[in-house]
């Protein structure tokens, strides 16, 4: 729930004929959710189509395609977080954002750390063919 929404709730409390108990939740309007869903779907479709087109069309320099794809993916994840999962900067979202930041940190450490370490291991390994020939 965002800040503005809680303000709307105050407005509703003034207008509504009945009171709300503490911790009680008023009804929310559905219009905001539909609008968010439409915006989110629009962005997602654009980003997804762009990603799929990049793989077949020679618009950008070939070796840079993976980087472009990863950028598009991160952008789309951001769109999903904001418009579908409703992670905002509102004060009621501070805890969610902190948890997300920690999650991203762990994901980054696991993925980048694994690739980094295993790449060095592969690099320092003897070529596979030679020891097999020596064994024969």
């Amino acid at each position, binding site marked *: *729930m*965002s*800040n*503005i929404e*809680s*303000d*709307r*709730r*105050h*407005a509703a*409390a*003034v207008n509504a004929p009945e009171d709300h108990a*503490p*911790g009680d*939740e008023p*009804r*929310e*309007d*559905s219009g905001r*959710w*539909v609008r*968010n*869903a439409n915006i*989110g*779907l629009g962005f*997602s*479709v654009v980003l*997804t189509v762009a*990603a*799929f087109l*990049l*793989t*077949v069309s020679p618009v950008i320099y070939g070796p840079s*395609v*993976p980087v472009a*794809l*990863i950028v598009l*993916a991160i952008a*789309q*994840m951001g769109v*999903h*977080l904001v418009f*579908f*999962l409703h992670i905002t900067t*509102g*004060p*009621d979202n501070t805890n*969610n954002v902190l*948890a*997300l930041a*920690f*999650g991203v940190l*762990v*994901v980054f450490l*696991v*993925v980048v*750390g*694994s*690739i980094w370490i*295993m790449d060095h291991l592969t690099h320092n390994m003897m070529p596979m063919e030679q020891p097999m020939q020596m064994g024969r």
Partner: protein
Amino acid sequence: MTDIGLPASVEAIRRSHEDPHRLGHTGHGREAPVEGAGHGTTGPANKRILVGYGFWIFLLSDIVMFSCFFAAFAVQRDATAGGPTMADIVDIPRVAIETAALLLSSYTCMLSFAATNARNLLWTQFFLLLTGLLGLVFVLLEAQEFIELVGRGFTPQRSGMLTAFFGLVGLHGLHVTLGGMWLATMMAQVQIKGFRREIVHRLICFNLFWHALDIVWIGIFTIVYLIGSGA
């Protein structure tokens, strides 16, 4: 703030008119904290905020687990052991349909929650059903892909790359399958019990779960399929 002691609610209405997008973030400063957000002296947060937060923590731990499978795939990508490479097994048109199905299901899931907020049973059920059918399309396409691969002899035992591929994509497919079962359960609960508070909370959690699955799929179709097909 004005000098005359207006009721807090009237003050809040005035604030929301003057600064509708909260660019001033007045909730943080000297002025009254936002009710129900668990800040300041306004008491504990709403139950729905707590439920959402708890489920968010679970989802993040789920994503951390997926990141381990992503790391395994990234490391094993070139470990084909003379078998098929990623470019040999990717079928881009099918991945495109799978992506479209999952993205649209995320959209209809959100629409169902909008209908839930409007307390409209018929539209909630309709969009939940649509979400489930799109999820079913996704799972069936993925099953078809796996059966084809195994039919060509590309089993998970064939190479390290295939192990990581089946592990990562299969884990996501398992999540979608379990999510579909949860969805069917929620449809039954909404139908029989109506929009009771705990039912709405479960619908919130289901929405979060379904969107998180879509986020993971973005990573899979980008890193596994699109990058795999090119390089």
